[in-house]
C-alpha cells in the first residue's frame, strides 16, 4: 500500500491537462511512442474533437524511483462545470492532485473551484506551471498567483511543458515524494468507492473504483450499497492502457469491475461496493443522486420517427445515466421527450450524439431550469416545462434556482461583466483582486439566466478573457411569466418560455424579430406574435412569397432546374410543419441566440 500513489489533475480547459497526462504515460513506459495518440485518455470522438474530457478515466502506471517500485494511478477528471459531481467523486478517490496552470493564461475560475474541492478532501497539491516554453509565458507572474492561492512556497511550483516533455521526470518524482500513500485497514470489510463508469457494448457497464478498505476478489458476491443490488464480480482488474484482469485488488488501489450490468442506471458514481458475505458498516460519505439542472424537449423532425428516437435515447441512457427523459407531447411538435441534462454542454452533447451515433434529426426546444410552483391551495410541484406553468389565478408563488457564480477576468473588463451580470438579474457578493490585473468576481444569480445565453455574452464582453464557474445555492421566489409565441394566431407551445416579468417585453420583441429572420417566406403571410396570457406584447410579419418561378424551362434547363428544386426540398427536411407554417429546426432554439 505504501508504494501506491493516487492522484488527479486539476486544470482549466486548454491548459494542457491531456497532453501532460500523455507525457506521464509515455515517461513511465505505460505506452510506447507508437501507441501514442494525442490525448489518449479521451477516447470518445466527440471529446477529441471538442478537446474536452467528458467522461473521466483512470490509468495505472508503473514507476521505479531509487530502486523502489511504485504504482501510480492517474484519475482523469472532466473539466466542465456540468460534470462537477463526477469531478468531486474522482477527487475523493485521490490523495493528491497536480494543479496545472497555463503559464501564459494564469489561474482560471474552473481551476479555483476544482482546487477548493481538492482542498476540501485534504488532497496534497503539487502546483505545475505548464506551457513554460510558450513565448507568451509569464512564469513569475503566474507563480505569484499560485503562491497567493495556495499559500505554498515559490520553489514548490514545478515548471513543465507537455509539448516538449520538459519537467515530466521531476513531476513523477515529486508525485512519489510529496503525495502520501493511501491509508485504510486492509483487514476491514471491503469498502470501495465507484468514481466512474463506462459503457462497453460487449461487456456491459464497467465501473471504476478505489478500494478504501479491505480487498476485492474476483468471483466474489458484491453489493452496491446505494442501489442495494447484488452481483458477482465476474472480472476485476487494473487499468493499464488495456484492462488487465487480477485475482484481487487491495486497499488503496484503483481498478475496474465487470458484473454484466447492462444499464448505466444501476451503477451510480459515488456508490460504495462491499461484499455480500461481510458487508461494511456504513457507506462512503458524499454519495448523491445526480439531479438534472436543465430541461428541454427533444422531438423527431419527422413525427414518424418517434419510436426510433425512443430506442436511441434508451441506448444513450445505457452509457449516460445522468440523462433522464420521459415522454411528453406538444400540440405543435407531436410526441417527443422531456429530457433532463446536467447542463447546457451536456444537452449539446446528447443532441450531437443522437445525430452522429444514431443518425436522428431532432428538434430541441428552449431549455429551462426546474422551478417550484406553490399554489394557493397549498399544493406544490416542480415545473420542468413551460406548459406546467400554473394558472396565475391559482398561483401563490414561483421559486427558481439560484447559483453562486465565480468569474475571473482581467481588471479592464470588470465594468462590462458587472453590467452583464446585473442585466442577468445577478447580485454582486464579492470582488477579490488575485493580482493587480486579475480579479475574481462573485455573483448570485438565477440559474435560468446562465441557461440562456450567458456564456456567449460573457465571452464577447470580455473578449474571451473571462473564466466562469458556478454552484447551485437553492431556490428563491421570483416574478416569472410564461411568454407564448403565436404563429398566425395559433400558440406554438414548443416556443413558449418562462422568463422574468421585467425582461418579458424586450425579450418578446427580440424573439419575434429573430423568428422573422429564421422563418423562410412562405406562400402566405405569417404573423408572429409574443403574448403573456391573452395580451400581445410584440408582433412581426413575414411577408408572403409572390415570385418563385423559372421563366424558361426548355431542353437543358430541365435538369438544372430539377437539381435546384431538389436542393430546396432537401433544406425543408429540417423543417417542422406546425399548423400551416413551416418552422426551421434552429427556430426552436432561437431564444438562445438573441443579441
Amino acid at each position, binding site marked *: 500500500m505504501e508504494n501506491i500513489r493516487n492522484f488527479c489533475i486539476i486544470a482549466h480547459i486548454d491548459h494542457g491537462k491531456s497532453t501532460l497526462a500523455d507525457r506521464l504515460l509515455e515517461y513511465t513506459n505505460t505506452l510506447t511512442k507508437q501507441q501514442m495518440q494525442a490525448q489518449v485518455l479521451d477516447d470518445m470522438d466527440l471529446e477529441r474533437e471538442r478537446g474536452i474530457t467528458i467522461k473521466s478515466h483512470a490509468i495505472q502506471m508503473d514507476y521505479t524511483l531509487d530502486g523502489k517500485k511504485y504504482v501510480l494511478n492517474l484519475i482523469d477528471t472532466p473539466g466542465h462545470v456540468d460534470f462537477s459531481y463526477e469531478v468531486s467523486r474522482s477527487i475523493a478517490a485521490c490523495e493528491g492532485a497536480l494543479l496545472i496552470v497555463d503559464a501564459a493564461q494564469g489561474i482560471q475560475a474552473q481551476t479555483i473551484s476544482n482546487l477548493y474541492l481538492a482542498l476540501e478532501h485534504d488532497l496534497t497539491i503539487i502546483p505545475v506551471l505548464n506551457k513554460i516554453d510558450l513565448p507568451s509565458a509569464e512564469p513569475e507572474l503566474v507563480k505569484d498567483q499560485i503562491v497567493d492561492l495556495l499559500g505554498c512556497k515559490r520553489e514548490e511550483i514545478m515548471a513543465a511543458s507537455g509539448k516538449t516533455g520538459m519537467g515530466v521526470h521531476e513531476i513523477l518524482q515529486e508525485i512519489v515524494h510529496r503525495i502520501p500513500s493511501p491509508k485504510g485497514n486492509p483487514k476491514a470489510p471491503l469498502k470501495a468507492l465507484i468514481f466512474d463508469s463506462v459503457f462497453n457494448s460487449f461487456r456491459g457497464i464497467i465501473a471504476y473504483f478505489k478500494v478504501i478498505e479491505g480487498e476485492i476478489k474476483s468471483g466474489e458476491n458484491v453489493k452496491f450499497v446505494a442501489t442495494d443490488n447484488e452481483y458477482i464480480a465476474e472480472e476485476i482488474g487494473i487499468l493499464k492502457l488495456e484492462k488487465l484482469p487480477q485475482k484481487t485488488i487491495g486497499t488503496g488501489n484503483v481498478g475496474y469491475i465487470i458484473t454484466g450490468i447492462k444499464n448505466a442506471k444501476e451503477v451510480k458514481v459515488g456508490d460504495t461496493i462491499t461484499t455480500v458475505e461481510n458487508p461494511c458498516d456504513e457507506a462512503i460519505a458524499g454519495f448523491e443522486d445526480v439531479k438534472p439542472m436543465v430541461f428541454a424537449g427533444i422531438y423527431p423532425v419527422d413525427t414518424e420517427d418517434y419510436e426510433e428516437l425512443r430506442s436511441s435515447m434508451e441506448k444513450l441512457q445505457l452509457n449516460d445515466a445522468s440523462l433522464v427523459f420521459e415522454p411528453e407531447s406538444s400540440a405543435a411538435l407531436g410526441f417527443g421527450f422531456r429530457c433532463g441534462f446536467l447542463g447546457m454542454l451536456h444537452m449539446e452533447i446528447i443532441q450531437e450524439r443522437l445525430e452522429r451515433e444514431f443518425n436522428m434529426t431532432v428538434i430541441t426546444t428552449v431549455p429551462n431550469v426546474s422551478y417550484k410552483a406553490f399554489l394557493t391551495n397549498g399544493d406544490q410541484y416542480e415545473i420542468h416545462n413551460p406548459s406546467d406553468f400554473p394558472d396565475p389565478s391559482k398561483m401563490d408563488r414561483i421559486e427558481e434556482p439560484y447559483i453562486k457564480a465565480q468569474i475571473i477576468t482581467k481588471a479592464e473588463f470588470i465594468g462590462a461583466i458587472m453590467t452583464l451580470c446585473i442585466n442577468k438579474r445577478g447580485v454582486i457578493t464579492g470582488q477579490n483582486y488575485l493580482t493587480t490585473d486579475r480579479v475574481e468576481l462573485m455573483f448570485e444569480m438565477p440559474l435560468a439566466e446562465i441557461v440562456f445565453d450567458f456564456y456567449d455574452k460573457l465571452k464577447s464582453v470580455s473578449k474571451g478573457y473571462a473564466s466562469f464557474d458556478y454552484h447551485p445555492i437553492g431556490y428563491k421566489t421570483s416574478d416569472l411569466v410564461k411568454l407564448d409565441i403565436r404563429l398566425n394566431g395559433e400558440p406554438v407551445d414548443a416556443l413558449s418560455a418562462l422568463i422574468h416579468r421585467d425582461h418579458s417585453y424586450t425579450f418578446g420583441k427580440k424573439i419575434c424579430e429573430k423568428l422573422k429572420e429564421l422563418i423562410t417566406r412562405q*406562400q402566405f403571410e405569417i404573423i408572429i406574435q409574443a403574448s403573456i396570457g391573452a395580451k400581445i406584447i410584440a408582433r412581426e410579419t413575414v411577408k408572403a*412569397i*409572390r*415570385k*418563385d*418561378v*423559372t*421563366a*424558361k*424551362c*426548355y*431542353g*437543358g434547363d*430541365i*435538369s438544372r*432546374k*430539377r437539381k*435546384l*428544386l*431538389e436542393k*430546396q*426540398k*432537401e433544406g*425543408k*427536411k429540417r423543417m417542422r410543419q406546425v399548423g*400551416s407554417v413551416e418552422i426551421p429546426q434552429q427556430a426552436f432554439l432561437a431564444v438562445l441566440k438573441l443579441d
Partner: protein
Amino acid sequence: MQILNLTLYPLSYLCHSFQMAGVYIHIPFCHKACTYCDFHFSTSLKNKSAFVEALLREIELRKNFLDEPVTTIYFGGGTPSVLKADEINRITEKLAENFKVIPQEITLEANPEDLTQDYLHSLRSTMVNRLSIGIQSFRNERLQWMNRNHTAEQSLQAVQCAKDAGFDVSIDLIFALPAMTMDEWQQQLMQADALRVSHISAYSLTLESKTAYAFQVKKKQVQELNENDAERQFLAAHDFFTEKGYTHYEISNYALPGKQAKHNSSYWNRTPYLGLGPSAHSFAMNMRCWNVANNNSYIQYISDGVLPLSCEELQLKDELNETLMTALRTAEGLNIETLENKMPPEMYRHFMKEIALQEKRGWIERKNAVIFIPFKHWYKADRIISEFFITT
C-alpha cells in the same frame, strides 16, 4: 456524372418506342450580347462556317441516337438567323439523310433586324415554317438597355413581313423589367395583340449571374422590379391574352387554338429529343446528355470524330421529379394515375398525402386524376412544385 462517348452504349439502350422525336440545333453566335442573357454564344462570327461543318459531322456521328421519326426541328441560339438559307438547307438535308424526318414544325429563332424581305424570301426555300421573333419590347429605350440590335419599328416590320411570307409567327416579350409600370406593360400587351400572331412567349426577366444585368444590379445602377409588381404584370398578361383568345398553356407561353409550340411542348411531355451544337442537351429514355459549352472545343472534338458529350442517367426519382416539374408548369397538368405504376407503394402513398395537403392549401387543384396549379399561383410554381419533390 461522367463524360461518356455515346457510341459505347449498346444501341438498344438508347432506343425507345415513342412515336416521334425532336431535334434542337444550337447556333452559338450573336451580333451582340443581350444585357440579361446567359445562354451560350459567341459574338465573333469568324468560326461560323467551321461550326456548320462540325454540326453536319455531328449529325452523322449521332445518327443512332433517335429511332423514331423527327417531326419538329428547332433552330435556337444564340441567333440562328445568322445562318444563310443554304446553310439551313444543308443542315436539314443532312438530318433527312440520317434520320427519318417527317416535318411538322420547323422553327427558326430570329432577330427582327435579320428578317429582311430578301432573307425571308430565301427562307421560303428551306424547310422552316415557323419563326420565333425576339421582339422583347416595343420601346426603343428598353431595347437599348437590353443591348438589342433593332428598333421597335424594325420589329413591327419584321413581324408583318414574316406573316406576309406565310410563316407561323411567335414573338417573345419580357416583363418585370426594372422600374416597369403597369401602364407600360399594358401598352406592350396591346401592341403585341395588334400584331395578331399565333403564339406569344412572355418571359419574366430573370437575374442570371455573370450577365451585364447582374453587374448593374450589383453596382446598384438598376434595381430588380419588386415581386408584387412583377406578379401583377404576370397576372395582367394572363387576363389580357386570355380575353383575346389565347390559351395560357404554359407559364410563359400563350397560343391561339391549335398553335401551341410542338417542339417546346415535347420538352414538357418527355418526348425524346436530340440536341446538336455546343451546349445543346439531348434526352432519350432515362439519359440526359449535353455537349461541351465551348465553340472551339466543340469544333475540335467533332472534327476528330469524338462526341464532346457528358451524360447523366436519370434515377427513378429524377425522372419522377422531372415529370412532375414539367407537367405542373402546364395548363394540362399532371395525370397522377400514370405515376401509380411507376412509384413504389410507400412513395406513392407519401405523394398522395402531399397532394391532399397542397390541395387543402389551394396551391393545386384536382380534376379526376389530373392535378394542376391554378393560374393565379403559377408565378410561385417553383415553390409549389418543390413541395412534391421526391428526395429519397
